């Protein structure tokens, strides 16, 4: 998280490169833009198959559900076959926005990776360098962001199972995670009964719904993270981002690492110290077992 808006993408790119050895299955980022949109404007990041008429079909779906496209940026993956397109749309309210997401997903041509007023999720299988070559993440500006390199332990390797995970229940929230949630099935069942829809079998998706559930019950972000340490089992550390904050939590036994550092430019969190070389903190600290930490944007 930067103290002043800047090249968040560049920081994340360099941090993820330093951590590439931790996982080569997939890479992804969620970067929160500092460009303010209108009150009824939203960013949709959509993975679109590279087929004739694809953008038209996605555009139709958006229109059918009541959305009004204001801008499209198309980027094709260097691996071929698809791209991740950035739509700015106007939607009158949140239920309309959710309908738009459902319509786009139902086309079979497009799949929404994220939606909100500042979040931009870009992710795919492969290395960090591939992500950079396709989407130029290092040039993306913003206020804060999270990134991940994946070594799959629980579910299959494909673009949709890459991190970050964004929840359809709430705009602008995403999670990256290291570890396993061993009571995933039990927690998932409880959340599904409360109305949350899961779209993968990845245990990370459980974390983001869990936190959103707590936020909807008026927990603060810090309280929601503390609840996760109590209620989620297994070895884990994860970073969650909202439009105005970043939080990090570590399991009670401290079985997965999380380090934090700060300097004049901002606050940095990573699994290992080698990623914190982007920061001029001579004393990066390990988050203790069971500890949580939240950073909020100034003025939020």
């Amino acid at each position: 998280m930067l103290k002043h808006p800047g090249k968040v993408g560049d920081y994340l790119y360099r941090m993820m490169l330093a951590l590439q050895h931790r996982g080569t299955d997939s890479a992804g980022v969620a970067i929160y833009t500092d460009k303010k949109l209108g009150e009824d404007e939203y960013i949709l990041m959509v993975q679109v198959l590279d087929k004739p008429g694809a953008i038209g079909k996605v555009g139709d779906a958006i229109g059918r559900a009541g959305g009004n496209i204001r801008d499209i940026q198309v980027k094709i993956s260097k691996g071929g076959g698809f791209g991740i397109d950035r739509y700015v749309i106007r939607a009158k309210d949140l239920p309309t926005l959710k309908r738009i997401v459902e319509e786009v997903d139902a086309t079979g041509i497009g799949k929404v990776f994220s939606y909100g007023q500042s979040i931009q999720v870009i992710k795919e299988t492969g290395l960090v360098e591939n992500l950079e070559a396709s989407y130029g993440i290092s040039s993306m500006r913003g206020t804060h962001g999270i990134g991940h390199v994946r070594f799959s332990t629980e579910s299959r390797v494909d673009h949709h199972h890459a991190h970050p995970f964004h929840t359809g229940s709430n705009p602008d929230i995403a999670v990256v995670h290291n570890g396993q949630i061993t009571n995933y099935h039990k927690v998932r069942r409880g959340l599904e009964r409360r109305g949350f829809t899961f779209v993968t079998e990845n245990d990370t998706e459980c974390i983001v719904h869990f936190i959103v559930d707590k936020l909807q019950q008026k927990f603060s972000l810090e309280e929601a993270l503390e609840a996760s340490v109590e209620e989620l089992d297994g070895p884990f550390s994860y970073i969650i981002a909202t439009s105005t904050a970043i939080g990090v939590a570590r399991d009670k036994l401290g079985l997965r690492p999380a380090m934090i550092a700060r300097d004049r430019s901002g606050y940095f969190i990573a699994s290992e110290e080698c990623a914190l070389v982007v920061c001029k903190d001579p004393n990066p600290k390990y988050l203790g077992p069971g500890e949580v930490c939240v950073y909020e944007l100034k003025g939020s």
Partner: protein
Amino acid sequence: MSSRVVDAAKMSPREINQLLRKARGKIRLINPNSAHFLAAGLRNSLKIEIDGSAGYYLGTCMHGPVIHINGNAGWYAGDNITDGVVIIDGSGGDGVGQGMYNGTIVVRKNCGSRTGQLMKGGTVIVGGNSGYMTGLYAFGGKIIICGDVEHSAGESIMGGAIYVGGKIASLGKNAVAQKVAT
């Protein structure tokens, strides 16, 4: 004897260790970039100065070398060493000295959790505090913590001793606390 200086900036851990294996006398490693497994399995008489931080498993399974690092070390520094010395001017991560048989590890600042877990012999000295479950399952050796230790100190300890200069948050199973006469 003057040190040979090696710039590790563009070297993989394997390349660094292959070079260290052939070295004699003194060597200074700069730009280690928190690489993992530095000095793994070394048996040669060597004094290594590391200018920066190391990643996980610094000096794992080594027998004999003396390592001095002016930065921090990640998890499991001195893992399973059978002899030698590791001196860390900064902080250590979790599991410093895990499973060690002999030798000495010094961390001038703080350590994470499970310091000295499963150790059989040797000495770990920590200038600051040590985390949760210090001395977990230790069979022997000495852990000396100048500061405080967190919860479950000496959890399931079977042998050896943990000396604490500061406060003990709580004791683990099997651990019995005794005041040492000064």
